[in-house]
């Protein structure tokens, strides 16, 4: 038994070594990522896009297809290249290599403003010297649209964003939420089929965020737009997106539906981005998972061998210690709204677990660990290779 466990540990060490190479290959080629999206008509296709700023790589050989009418959220840590990618799509920044295809047309060389793509910026960027009405109609005016049509369209858009009658106000007279709504209306005035949103909710308070989030979702559906949303807020991405693309160091780590991203993260970094997660390396064989001198009975899976179990903290419960359960020692506890989080020393690992009663356990207590193995995702390769 002990010999077998030693062998497993050795094998796990080798996995870690191998995973580095696998990650490299994935990042550069996009193989293994669902970058093509679901079924439907492809709207926007990014092909091997690369952008460098001096020695720094902002976007590296990135390929991604966004379907018509889809809302794709670009998620990642600050500086991972999300905004640069959005600027490449918009045409504000030219790529060093690769191409951008919109409706089957290569638009890589087209300047910003001529791609039927508009962008809403994080800082709203309303023109301070123009009234709300003039701001909204700005794009139309630039295309030579007659004044009558502009006025009519501005009124319609103000109705749409639920701010009627403010066309004569100046941006300085508006609140943060109103400014961002007007900024959205200004982008929509050109009736674009693709909208890029660069963290449009990040400067707003929680209540306004919620309101504007609902408005964006409503407009996205009503106007049947293809939307790319950049955000570093995981909840925002989960709530709004049809698919989430997780970026790190200019590469795509995973592109998938919110549920799959949460339940089946490909890398440690993806897993960590969407909430607390435990990573237990072990060996999976015939419905059993061997780790830390423990044998767990898990649902039968087709896959087997050296695995890393990705266990969300809410899938580990702290209970009274008993013979049939693995035990650990509480090292720290925290109270969050609606739940208690315990840090439990389990063998060589520290696990994050949830408990119902904050006051039932204290640091130093021995506790039992109840793992819902039906919700655990086993990843054969990737989890240990993340750069988290």
């Amino acid at each position, binding site marked *: 038994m002990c010999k077998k466990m030693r062998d497993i540990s050795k094998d796990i060490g080798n996995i870690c070594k191998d995973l580095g190479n696998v990650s490299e290959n994935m990042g550069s080629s996009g193989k293994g990522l669902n970058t093509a999206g679901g079924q439907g008509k492809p709207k926007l296709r990014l092909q091997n896009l690369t952008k460098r700023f001096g020695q720094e790589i902002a976007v590296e050989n990135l390929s991604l297809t966004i379907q018509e009418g889809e809302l794709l959220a670009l998620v990642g840590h600050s500086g991972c290249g999300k905004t640069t990618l959005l600027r490449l799509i*918009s*045409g*504000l920044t030219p790529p060093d290599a690769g191409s951008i295809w919109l409706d089957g047309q290569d638009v890589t060389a087209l*300047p*910003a*403003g*001529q791609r039927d*793509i*508009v*962008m809403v*910026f994080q*800082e709203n*960027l309303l*023109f*301070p*010297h123009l009234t709300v009405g003039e701001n909204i109609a*700005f*794009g139309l*005016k*630039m*295309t030579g649209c007659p004044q009558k049509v502009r006025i009519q369209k501005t009124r319609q858009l103000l109705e749409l964003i639920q701010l009627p009658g403010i066309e004569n106000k*100046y941006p*300085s007279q508006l609140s943060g939420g109103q400014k961002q709504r007007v900024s959205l209306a*200004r*982008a929509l005035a*050109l009736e674009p089929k693709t909208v890029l949103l660069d963290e449009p909710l990040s400067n707003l308070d929680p209540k306004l965020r919620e309101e504007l989030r609902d408005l964006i979702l409503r407009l996205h559906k009503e106007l049947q737009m293809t939307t790319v949303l950049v955000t570093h807020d995981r909840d925002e991405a989960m709530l709004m997106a049809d698919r989430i693309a997780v970026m790190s160091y200019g590469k795509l780590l995973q592109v998938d539906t919110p549920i799959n991203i949460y339940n089946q993260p490909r890398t440690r970094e993806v897993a960590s981005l969407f909430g607390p997660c435990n990573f237990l390396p072990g060996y999976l064989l015939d419905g059993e998972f061997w780790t830390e001198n423990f044998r767990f009975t898990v649902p039968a899976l087709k896959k087997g061998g050296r695995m890393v179990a990705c266990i969300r903290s809410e899938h580990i419960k702290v209970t009274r210690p008993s013979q049939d359960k693995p035990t650990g020692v509480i090292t720290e506890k925290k109270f969050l709204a609606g739940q208690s989080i315990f840090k439990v020393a389990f063998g060589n690992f520290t696990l994050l677990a949830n408990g119902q009663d904050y006051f039932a356990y204290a640091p130093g207590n021995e506790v039992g660990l109840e793992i819902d193995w039906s919700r655990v995702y086993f990843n054969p390769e990737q989890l240990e290779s993340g750069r988290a």
Partner: protein
Amino acid sequence: MKRYALFNTLRRERILPYLYLAPALLVIIIFFLGGFVLALTMSLGYFPVVGLKEISFKYYQEVLTQAEFWHSLSFTFYIAFISTLISTVLGVFLAYQLLKIKLNQRFTSFLYKFPLAVPHLVAAVMILFLLSQGGLIARAMLKLGLLSGTGEFPAFFYSKNAVGIILIYCWKEIPFVTLMVYTVLQKIDTKLGEAAQILGASSRQTFFHILLPLSMPSIISASVIIFAYSFGAFELPYLLGATYPKTLSVWAYLNYISPELLDRPLAMAINTLISVGCAFLVFIYFWSTKKYFRNWS
């Protein structure tokens, strides 16, 4: 303790800031305001040294009814207006081009700031050597056989067209406008310029609809400063101006140094009129920028 109490009282009454400013304020009050009050009183006919004590507007009346005053005023206005117009248009254009070409910052910075460091008189000598009828260009043209005599070269100096004076002002003032506008344009361009671009505006549309209106307060401010300067400036029109008409400042100076002491109130009336004209310009500046800022901020 008493001393601290007094100190606190002073602080409460917000006198302290004025006390800190006192050295600078005293200089301004004594040398500027004091001088202005003296000029004003003298222009109103109060000049006891020569026995004038009766306050009246007769010197203003005398100045305003002279044809020479109106010629001087229009000549001064012509020089100030043309040099300001050229400097502003070219300064703004240069600032926009600097923004677009994004050259080596140190090099461009040196290049366009260089004329700012050169005094007006030095600039005058440089341009005089270059553009006068006996200057480098005229002599070069003569050597090349393009002119039969230097007298054929257009007279830019000591002439009624005042081209030389305007050129010197432009050489000095274009970089000043560029400096003021470029700094503002840089801030606007990166953010709002991109927002305009994404909404389909061409570079030209972005410039005229966004960059120009947003930098207008600094453009107006720079224009007012250079107009007021060239309107009241003395040395260049005195050294390089025509015999007739003279600019207001030169005319005022000549009245001041006149052996006839009774002409001095006339000089002061002219000076007061120049000051009032400049003050009026400052008022227009504040009024126009207030209109902008009321809506913006």
